């Protein structure tokens, strides 16, 4: 994949949550907060997981064009001010709902350390919470606003896979 500007890597790696947008059956994009699990800077692949019963999973199966937004959430002074929108094609991996996602859990726990303790509580509150499909996103385009400055045109990187 193309080399991205340094600040785009920073926006992804130092993010707290990101907003994952899938498209509903009524063709409406819906963005909800998730924790990024993994980013491969060479291939560009981004990985999240989702309870398999969430509509998001079926949305991705049926309509694989998705977007992920990275932007400050107010979690602290150290988070990047950059805004980065990644558009790409997603695929669902539901081959191992029980533990497939745990291979990538470190990235989630780095962003939300309390997740290691709260998973059992979440499973009680929302049955099926830990039956999770992996969603892999292959980026098609990065649109970014350094320092979140929307008065400038976005920097755009179209992805070419050599």
């Amino acid at each position, binding site marked *: 994949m193309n080399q991205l500007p340094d600040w785009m890597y920073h926006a992804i790696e130092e993010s*707290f*949550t990101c*907003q994952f*947008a*899938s*498209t509903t059956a*009524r*063709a*409406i*994009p*819906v*963005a*909800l*907060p998730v924790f990024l699990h993994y980013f491969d800077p060479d291939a560009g692949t981004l990985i999240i997981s989702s309870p398999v019963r969430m509509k998001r999973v079926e949305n991705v199966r049926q309509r694989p*064009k*998705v*977007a992920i*937004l990275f*932007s*400050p*959430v*107010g*979690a602290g002074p150290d988070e990047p001010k950059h*805004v980065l*929108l990644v*558009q*790409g094609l997603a695929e669902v991996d539901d081959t191992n709902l029980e533990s497939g996602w745990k291979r990538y859990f470190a990235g989630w726990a780095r962003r*939300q*350390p*309390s997740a290691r303790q709260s998973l059992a509580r979440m499973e009680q*509150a*929302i049955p099926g919470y830990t039956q999770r499909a992996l969603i892999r996103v292959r980026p*098609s*385009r990065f*649109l970014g*606003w350094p320092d*979140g400055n*929307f*008065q*400038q*045109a*976005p920097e755009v990187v179209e992805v070419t896979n050599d």
Partner: protein
Amino acid sequence: MIDWTEDLLAQIAAASRVALSYPGLDGYPVVLPLPFTFDRDNRCFSMPIPHQTPSPASEEQVSLTLLYYDEQRKAERYVLFYGHLTETGNEWTFTPSQVVLPQWRSRA
């Protein structure tokens, strides 16, 4: 039809920002984090239109995610609205028609 309860209005007041989502011309979703104001009388949100953003393919197939950081739980919370978008000068106005409260709230 939205039940504009005091609880919902309080959540809107507590939110720090919104993520506006609409379909782009090439079929990919576009999501933008924007500052907003909420008009309590007309029940609509106003947001500045960023410079040179991708154009919406539809102003009817739009959603707005109200976001706020939960310091206690160290997580980001949301309320989701469906609705439609109109453009007036340098502003977008989003008028909600449906609200979705996340599962964790309804079980609280």
